[in-house]
């Protein structure tokens, strides 16, 4: 659990982060969104004390993060940034082994961990381990950057626009990989982005910041249905609201008994994808099947539209 309690950071007499309080539950993904200059990156960097706050306290599992030296704290917290920041003079394997080496893991344990992570990120360990970062594609570099952040099995992973430099297709893949890995390790993730689609895709809870202040912190659903301020509403995007609602849930939630014609829709796809499929094929209902091909009833256009409706 990460408790951010009344945190303030002042640069040149101006509050960049202004009395922010929020609590992030363990094993969840919290996404901080805001325009540039909103203080979201500064807030993130105060969690691992790359920036020292001027007021307030941050507790990790109940312990003040100032009880140990900054560098020791940072070895326990994963950190991945935009542009990956891989060390160009070290191989992929050495890059991933950075923190294990700093905290004195033995060679066998480190090597096994490097191999496990590379495999988990779908990179061939024998092929990629000895390569240098400049020999990798942007997407591969980014994956190695996240692998490095996870090498010492941190409970908390901080990510500062980690997918900002990737093209849309690779970015979507990287986001799905991140969710899979988060489930695998149960890591608590705080991710900063200015991309609302990314936020809605990844977040258990979204924090919206503007001019150093936290405007709202809640589940994506709540941000759409009950935006705290006009700014939050604008960030969510008025014309996007119904689609955001649909993008958060799976088809399986809306499946009802019955049958329909045409090609079936997988129960695991989002409701937004199901709506798109129905609109595209001109149907008012489609059969739903689970991943192992078992029939799960049907999903109707009416149910989808009902689900996408805002509050009266």
């Amino acid at each position, binding site marked *: 659990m990460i408790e951010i309690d009344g945190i303030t950071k002042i640069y040149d007499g101006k509050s960049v982060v202004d009395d922010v309080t929020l609590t992030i539950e363990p094993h969840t993904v919290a996404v901080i969104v805001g325009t540039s200059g909103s203080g979201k990156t500064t807030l993130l960097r105060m969690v*691992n004390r*790359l920036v020292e706050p001027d007021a307030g306290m941050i507790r990790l599992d109940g312990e003040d993060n100032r009880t140990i030296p900054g560098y020791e704290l940072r070895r326990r917290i994963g950190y991945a*940034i935009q542009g990956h920041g891989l*060390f160009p003079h070290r191989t992929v394997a050495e890059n991933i082994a950075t*923190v294990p080496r*700093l905290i004195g893991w033995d060679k066998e344990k480190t090597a096994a961990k490097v191999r496990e992570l590379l495999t988990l990120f779908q990179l061939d360990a024998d092929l990629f381990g000895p390569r240098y970062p400049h020999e990798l594609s942007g997407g591969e570099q980014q994956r190695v950057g996240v692998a490095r952040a996870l090498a010492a099995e941190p409970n908390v992973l901080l990510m500062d626009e980690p997918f900002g430099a990737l093209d849309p297709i690779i970015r979507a893949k990287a986001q799905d990989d991140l969710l899979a890995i988060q489930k695998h390790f149960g890591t608590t993730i705080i991710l900063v982005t200015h991309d609302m689609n990314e936020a809605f895709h990844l977040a258990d809870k979204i924090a919206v910041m503007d001019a150093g202040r936290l405007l709202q912190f809640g589940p994506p659903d709540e941000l759409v249905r009950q935006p705290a301020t006009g700014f939050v509403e604008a960030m969510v995007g008025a014309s996007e609201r119904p689609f955001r609602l649909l993008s958060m849930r799976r088809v399986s939630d809306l499946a009802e008994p019955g049958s329909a014609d045409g090609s079936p829709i997988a129960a695991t796809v989002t409701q937004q994808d199901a709506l798109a499929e129905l609109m595209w094929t001109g149907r008012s209902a489609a059969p739903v099947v689970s991943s192992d091909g078992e029939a799960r009833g049907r999903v109707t256009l009416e149910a989808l539209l009902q689900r996408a409706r805002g509050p009266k």
Partner: protein
Amino acid sequence: MRALPYLLRGLLLALLMTFLLVPQTMEPLLRPLAQSNAPVIYNQGSLLSLTVQHLLTVLAATSAATVVAVSLAILVSRPAGAEFLPLSRSLVNIGQTFPPVAVLALAVPVVGFGEKPTLIALFLYGLLPIFESTLTSLTTLPRAVVEAARGTGMTGAQRLLQIELPLALPVILSGIRLSVVISLATATIGSTVAARTLGEVIIAGLQSNNLAFVVQGGLIVGALAVLIYDGLSALERLTVARS
């Protein structure tokens, strides 16, 4: 065609070694430059020992300049030392702008004739290129890399030794290379205050109006500079390839 530069350097090295080890072989070439009854090959000492002495002087001065300039650049590129940046820069600049001849003139009354004033002059003259290149490379490292080094929990010393210096090495080496070449040429004036360098040959030639002496002294220094410059460039490329 790609072998040609290596071939030329090999040839130059061979010529230089021949000249230093058996100077008499070059006599026919230099003969036209000397007056009829004057000696053609420098005869007041061994060319080989002068060359070795010349190189040792440059090595000592450049090593000292490297240690001081690199340490100073590291110091002022840390947050704690940032306020010393303008001061260090002025000091190093004075070292460069002060003519080595003037340094010799000022140093002789203090430390006497011989190697010492030459070493002082070369040391001061060699600081600037190394200091500036080290400082530039340390302060222009990719931001994301430096940030990542902090983010992974490296201490200040670990960041410097494991990340910053290895990445800055190629540029630091280019500064050292520049400094070495300047020193190789400048060391010759050390012989005006009785330092044993190849300048002795040139000065002897000037005093006895013997062009052959002047040319052989100059050519040896020139050949040394070219070969050492190339050697250090190759070393630099090696470090770039690794990073």
